[in-house]
C-alpha cells in the first residue's frame, strides 16, 4: 500500500533525454503558470472594488508594445522547445542501424514476441541491457499500442502495417508493458513485463532457448525439429516457405514460371511495372505475399495467387526473416 512512486523508473538511453525534456517543459509550465495564477490573484485582490487606496490612473486598455512582448517571448520559447523535441524524436524514431530485432504481434488480448533465434514469448519480452533494440510491431486484429513507460517509448500496433520502434535498455530489471490503445473488453488485461538482463545472462538465456527464467509463458518455436536442434526464426520461415509450397516457383532453378529472385529482394530498390521504385522491406514483402498484384516487379507477370487469409502474422514474420536471411547470406551477412 505504501509503495507510492511519483515518477516512473528510467531504464533506457532514450528515456534519459525524454525525461530531461519533460522536466524542462514542466519547469517552463510552472514559471508561466505561477505568473498567471499568482498574478491573477494579486491583481484581483489589489484592485478589488472597495479598495480605493490604489492608483487607477492611466488605466490604458491597449498597448502595442506589451502585446508584442507577450506574443513574441512565448513564441520564441515555443519555437526553441519545438525544435528540441522534434530533433529528439527524430533521433529516436528514425531508422537506426546495428540493432537486435524482435517482432511483436498484438492480438486481443495478448502480446506475442519473437526473437531472431526462434524463442517466443507471450506477454513477456526479455531483452539485453546495453544494446539497441528494434521492435517491429504489428497487430492481427484491432489497434493496440506497445508501451514501455520505463523506456518512455510507445508505438501503435496497426493491423496490416509494420511499425518500428528503437530503444536501448540500460538497467537490468522488470518493467511494465501495457497496451495503451483501447482494444476491447480485456484491454486492461493486455499487459505484461519487459525483463532486461545483463548481456551475458541474456545470451545464456537465449542459448537455453528462453528457459531458465521464471517466465512460464516463454517457449521454443519450430516444434520438434529434425536433429533435436532448435530453429531460428529464419529457419522456421524456410519451413513455412516449403509448407506453403512457395518453393514450387521461388528458389527453384527448374521452375517453369519466371519469378523474381527473392534472394535479392531484401533491402534493394525494386523497379515496378508502373515505373515506381519501392524498397524491399517488411511492408513490401508482406504485401507481396498477401496481395501480389498490388506491386508487380518490372518484367514479371502477375501470376502468384494471393495468400490473404491463409498466412498468419506469425508465419509472415518468419517468412520475412527467411527472405532477409537469404539476402544477408548472399551479400556476406551484416
Amino acid at each position, binding site marked *: *500500500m505504501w509503495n507510492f*512512486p*511519483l*515518477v516512473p523508473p528510467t531504464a533506457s538511453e532514450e528515456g534519459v*533525454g*525524454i525525461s530531461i*525534456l*519533460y522536466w524542462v517543459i*514542466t519547469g517552463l*509550465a510552472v514559471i508561466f*503558470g505561477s505568473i*498567471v495564477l499568482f*498574478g491573477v490573484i494579486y*491583481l*484581483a*485582490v489589489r*484592485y*478589488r*472594488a472597495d479598495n480605493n487606496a490604489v*492608483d*487607477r490612473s*492611466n*488605466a490604458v*486598455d*491597449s*498597448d502595442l508594445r506589451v502585446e508584442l512582448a507577450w*506574443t513574441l517571448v512565448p513564441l520564441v520559447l*515555443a519555437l526553441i*522547445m*519545438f525544435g*528540441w*523535441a*522534434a530533433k529528439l*524524436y527524430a533521433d529516436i524514431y528514425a531508422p537506426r542501424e546495428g540493432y537486435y530485432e524482435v517482432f511483436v504481434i498484438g492480438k*486481443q488480448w495478448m502480446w506475442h514476441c519473437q526473437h531472431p533465434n526462434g524463442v517466443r514469448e507471450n506477454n513477456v519480452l526479455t531483452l539485453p541491457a546495453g544494446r539497441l533494440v528494434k521492435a517491429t510491431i504489428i497487430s492481427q*486484429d*484491432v*489497434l493496440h*499500442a506497445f*508501451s514501455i*513507460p*520505463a523506456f518512455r*517509448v*510507445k*508505438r*501503435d500496433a*496497426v*493491423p*496490416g*502495417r509494420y*511499425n518500428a520502434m528503437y530503444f536501448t535498455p540500460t538497467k537490468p530489471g522488470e518493467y*511494465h508493458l501495457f497496451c*495503451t*490503445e*483501447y*482494444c*476491447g*473488453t480485456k*484491454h*486492461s488485461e493486455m499487459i505484461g513485463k519487459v525483463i532486461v538482463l545483463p548481456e551475458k545472462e541474456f545470451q545464456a538465456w537465449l542459448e537455453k532457448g528462453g528457459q531458465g527464467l521464471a517466465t512460464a509463458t516463454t517457449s521454443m518455436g519450430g516444434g520438434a525439429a529434425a536433429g533435436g536442434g532448435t530453429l531460428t526464426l529464419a529457419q522456421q520461415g524456410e519451413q513455412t516457405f516449403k509448407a506453403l509450397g512457395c518453393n514450387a516457383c521461388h528458389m527453384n532453378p527448374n521452375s517453369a514460371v519466371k519469378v523474381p529472385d527473392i534472394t535479392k529482394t531484401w533491402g534493394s530498390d525494386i523497379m515496378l511495372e508502373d515505373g515506381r521504385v519501392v524498397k524491399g522491406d517488411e511492408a513490401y514483402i508482406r504485401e507481396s505475399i498477401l496481395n501480389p498484384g498490388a506491386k508487380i516487379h518490372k518484367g514479371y507477370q502477375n501470376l502468384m495467387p494471393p495468400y490473404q487469409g491463409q498466412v498468419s502474422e506469425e508465419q509472415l514474420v518468419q517468412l520475412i526473416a527467411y527472405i532477409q536471411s537469404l539476402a544477408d547470406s548472399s551479400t556476406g551477412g551484416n
Partner: protein
Amino acid sequence: MATATYTGTEKPNYLNWKTTVASWLLTYDHKRIAILYLVSISIFFLLGGLAAAFIRLDLATPKGDLLTSDIYNKMFTTHGVIMIFLFLIPSIPAVFGNFLLPLMIGARDVAFPRLNLLSWYFFMAGALLVLIALFRGGIDTGWTFYTPYSSSFAKGEVSLAIVGVFLAGFASIFTGINFLVTIHKMRAPGMTWFRLPLFVWAMYATSLIQVLGTPVVAITLLLVAVERTFRIGIFDPNLGGDPILYQHLFWFYSHPAVYIMILPAMGVISEVLSAFSKRRVFGYHFVAFSSLAIAIIGFLVWGHHMFSTGQSMYAGIVFSFLTWIVAIPSAIKIFNWMATIWKGRVHWDTPMLYALGFMGLFVIGGLTGLHLAAMATNVHLTDTYFIVAHFHYVMVGGAIMGYLAALHFWWPKMTGRMYPEGWGKLAAMLVFVGFNLTFFPQFILGYMGMPRRYHSYPEEWAVLNVLSTAGSSVLGFGYLLPVIYLTWSLKYGKVVTERNPWGARGLEWELVDPVPDPHNFERIPIVTRPAYDYAHPEEPTGFVPKPRPVVVGGKDG
C-alpha cells in the same frame, strides 16, 4: 405582438406571453430555443456525470471491483459520447449563443429562426438514438469510435449511436450557419465589427469550425456505419481499408471540436472579467483576432493525435510545429485578461469566481498541452492519464467553468430571478477544489505510464487513484449544488426588477427589459459606443430610437 394568452398586468416577457406546451415546442424565439437547449443538455450533463461517478468509483481499487471490464468500457464510452456530443459541443453556443447573440448585436432574432428550431429537433432526435443505443446494452467503442474495432469487432448498437451523433452534428451545423449569417447581416446600425462584444467574436470563430469541420466527422462516422453494416472496406484492413485514414478524418474535425468547446467559454470569460472589473477588455483587437487564429490554425494540427501511429515523421514534425504555434493565441488571451483586471474595480461575485477559476484551470490545461505538442514527450504521454488530465483541465476546467460563469452571469436576464449568492460562491469553491483534487493526481499517474481506459491497474498507483476518486466526490457535489439552488431560485429567488443588476455594458443589459420582451427590442437600437465602454458610464452603449410620429394623410417613407 403579444396576443390572447397573456393576462397579467405588467408588460409581457418572452417567458410568460404564451405558456402552452405548443408555444414552447414550436417556438421560433431564439431565447426560448436557448431554454429548450438548456433543459436538455442539463439532463445529459447529469447522465454523463453519473457515468463518470461509476468510472471513478470503480477505479478506487486497483482491481476495479465495482464493475466488470465490459461494463466499465461501456461506462467510459457513455461518459465520453454524452459529454462531448450531447453536452459540451452544444453547451455555450446553443444555450448562450442562442440567447445572447441577437440581444448583443441588436437584432430581433437569429437570421433563420425556423432552422434554429429544427436544430433543436435534430439534436433531440440524435440524442434519442444515442440513448436508445445506450439502453439497449450500451456500446464499448470509446467516444472516438476507432476503426477497425468499431466497424468490425464491437458488439452493440454502434451504428445507431453513430447515426445519433450524425444527427446531433447537423444540429451543430445549423447553429453555426445561423450565427454566421446573423453576425454578418443582422448587426444593428452602428454595431461595427470592432464594436462587437468579444463573446460574439468567439461565437463567430466557433461557428466557422462547426460549419467547416462537422460535415467531415459526420460523413466519416457514417462510413464506419456503412463498413459495419454492408462490409464495404473503407477502414478495416481485412476488407482492404486503412484504419489510420479513419484517424485522420476523425481528428480533422475532433481536434477543432476542442475549440468548439473552449472558444465560446473564452468569449464568456472576456464578458465576465470585463463586467466584474468594470473595465474595457485589454487589447480588444488581439483578443478578437486570437479567436479567429485559434479557429484557423486549429484546423491544421490534427496529426498531433497520431504521433505514435507510424505516420510520416515529416508530417509529424509539421503538425508538432503548428501545435506549438496554436498555443500562442491562447497565451495572448490570458495575458490580455490579466491586464483587464489590472487597475479595474474587481467585484468578487460568483460569475467572477468562475471566471478567475477558469483562468487558473485553463492555464494548467494549456501549459500541459506543451508536453503533448513536444513530439518526444508526446509519445510517452499519449493514451495515458496525462492526456485524460490535460483535456479535462481544458474541457471541464475551461469549458464548464466558462459555462457556469455564463449561467450565473446571465441567469437574472434569462429567468428574472437572482441565484443565492452565498451558495453560488460555495459551489464555485467546491468545483475548483474538487476539480484539482480529481485531475491533478492524474498528471502524475500519466507520467508514470498509467494507460487511459483501463479498468484495473498496478497496486502502486492505488493512492493517487483513491485521491482522484475522493476529489471527484467533492467535484460532483460542487456540480449538484447549482442544479439545486438554480432550480430553487426559479420560484424563490429574489425577483430582478432592474435591467442591469451587474452594472455591465452591452445592449443585452442596457437596452433590454429585465426579462426580455418576446421581440427583444421595440425598435432596432442604434449603437453609439464601442463595447465595454466602462470609462464613460454616463453614456449608454446605444439607444432605441423613438417611433416616428404618424403624419395623417402624409406618406410614410
